[in-house]
């Protein structure tokens, strides 16, 4: 196994564990951002430039910030420390095991592809763009409509609150 991949993987998983187990929510978000960064570096290591940079741009630049805003705007700080395991931890464990089982079943059951040599620049951004605009144009448009609908919904919810005041 490639040493760099191993190091990136260990760092990413460690950051993910930290994101779950740290007691301060802001620390958790920052650990999550490190985890996102690890995933992005993993993509870059595998030669997927576009996906890696998009991962940084979207997840660190937007999603992590959004979570930070959500925490700061909803919590009033100073919450008492809660026990590490809450009472329903085994539900979560069961679901996690089920998802893991599903994924590994799908991965192991699928037909194996030859491991390709890891070289940068295997796909250019132009190729990705052309594919998105021709072969995968319908899923792209559907996703766009879905996101627009979600955004409109968020605006409507915020709007009604403003009027009631």
């Amino acid at each position, binding site marked *: 196994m490639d040493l760099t991949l191993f190091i990136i993987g260990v760092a990413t998983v460690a950051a993910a564990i930290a994101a779950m187990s740290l007691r301060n929510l*802001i620390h958790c978000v*920052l650990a999550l*951002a490190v985890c996102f*960064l690890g995933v992005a570096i993993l993509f870059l290591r595998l030669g997927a*430039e*576009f996906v890696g*940079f*998009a991962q*940084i*741009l979207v997840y*660190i*630049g*937007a999603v*992590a*910030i959004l979570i*930070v*805003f959500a925490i*700061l705007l909803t919590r009033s700080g100073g919450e008492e420390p809660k026990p590490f395991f809450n009472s329903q931890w085994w539900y979560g464990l069961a679901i996690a095991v089920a998802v893991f089982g599903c994924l590994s079943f799908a991965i192991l059951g699928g037909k194996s592809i030859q491991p390709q040599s890891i070289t940068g*620049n295997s796909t*250019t*951004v*132009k190729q990705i763009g052309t594919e998105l605009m021709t072969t995968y144009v319908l899923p792209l448009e559907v996703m766009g409509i879905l996101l627009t609908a979600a955004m409109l919904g968020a605006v409507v919810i915020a709007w009604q609150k403003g009027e009631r005041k």
Partner: protein
Amino acid sequence: MSQLTLTTPILATADQILVNFKQSLVGLLPEILQTPAAVMLSIIPIMICFATLFALATWLERKGLGRIQNRIGPNRVGLPFTKTRLYGLGQPIADGIKMLIKEDIVPRNADKFLHFMAPVALLIPAFLAFAVIPYGEGIVPIDLDAGLLFFFAIGASTELVIFCAGWASRNKYALLGAMRAIAQMISYELPLIISTFSVIMAVGSLSLVSIVNAQSGNFWDWHVFTPWGLAGFILFFIASLAEANRSPFDIPEGESEIIAGHLIEYSGFKYALFFMAEYLGMFAMNGLSIALFLGGYHAPFAFLEGWLPGPVWFLAKLLVLIALFIWIRGTMPRLRMDQLMNFAWKFMLPMSLVVVVAAGLWKFLANPVFGWPVCGGLILGVHLLLSRSLFDARGWQKRTYRFAD
């Protein structure tokens, strides 16, 4: 490059002095050291050059602001160990020593680890952003296929670090400043990125090297001398002012309101690192706008190409843009928070979308004679309609005085 070497071989080699020097230096080393040496020779000059430029820019800025405000500015510290004063050029050295030996104060309730990590982590993206900018023919640290995307991804990761700094300080002003900074940077990131779409559409590549190469020739081949390029450059310039937290958009740091925002609990060298990251961000942003719109390292006329090496033209353009930044800082009042947000979402965003449409039209018309009136008219028309309707929506009237008349 191929044309240049064919027509003017001597001049072209003059342009390539730096590249040849690096190659011959690397060639001296044993084979196992060549790759690391080549990497270091790409990184270290950039770090040294831009750190020096940072020191010079602080001095230039203080001098420039002083002149704008009818003062002299720093003029006491000369060059060390000499009697020459040289208009206070030694000021950056004195400032640097002062920052180094100042006491480093960490608030008792601060989150010590994050408080320490924030300035360090901020400097990493600030330097990384220089990695994709082309400084001359063949002088680019890495020519990524998705170079532009890399630049924006790096820029986006500074926001979280600034939040880190503000939150770890445990100071209400610091947190307010950090929240303001995030809100501003996210709002202006959108027009910043969208205003570059027109260039990407025209060139058909995200690589900054091919974008610069598409503008070779005379100055009228630069993207800024097309209707979409001009409008895109103005939008990009305004948004880059906001991204660099520069003057009309320095709300996150507003000295008179929230006493320097997220910087408030930082002193000594950590403060200097923040300061440096801010200036480096400004240089990188300007370097990007030079590469996108102002012809990169190309000379304004084709016959001048090769007389001076590309990095000199790049530096000249960079200094002009820095002077523009300083000028704006000296003359524009700070915006209010709501004005800032309205400007970003109601004006900058629609305008940048219109520029994308205009760039598409330009590509299909493929003729400047039709292109200029149609694309320019579209941008101007939408600009007039938008600004007029926004102005009318404010309901401003002629000011009437009750007692003064």
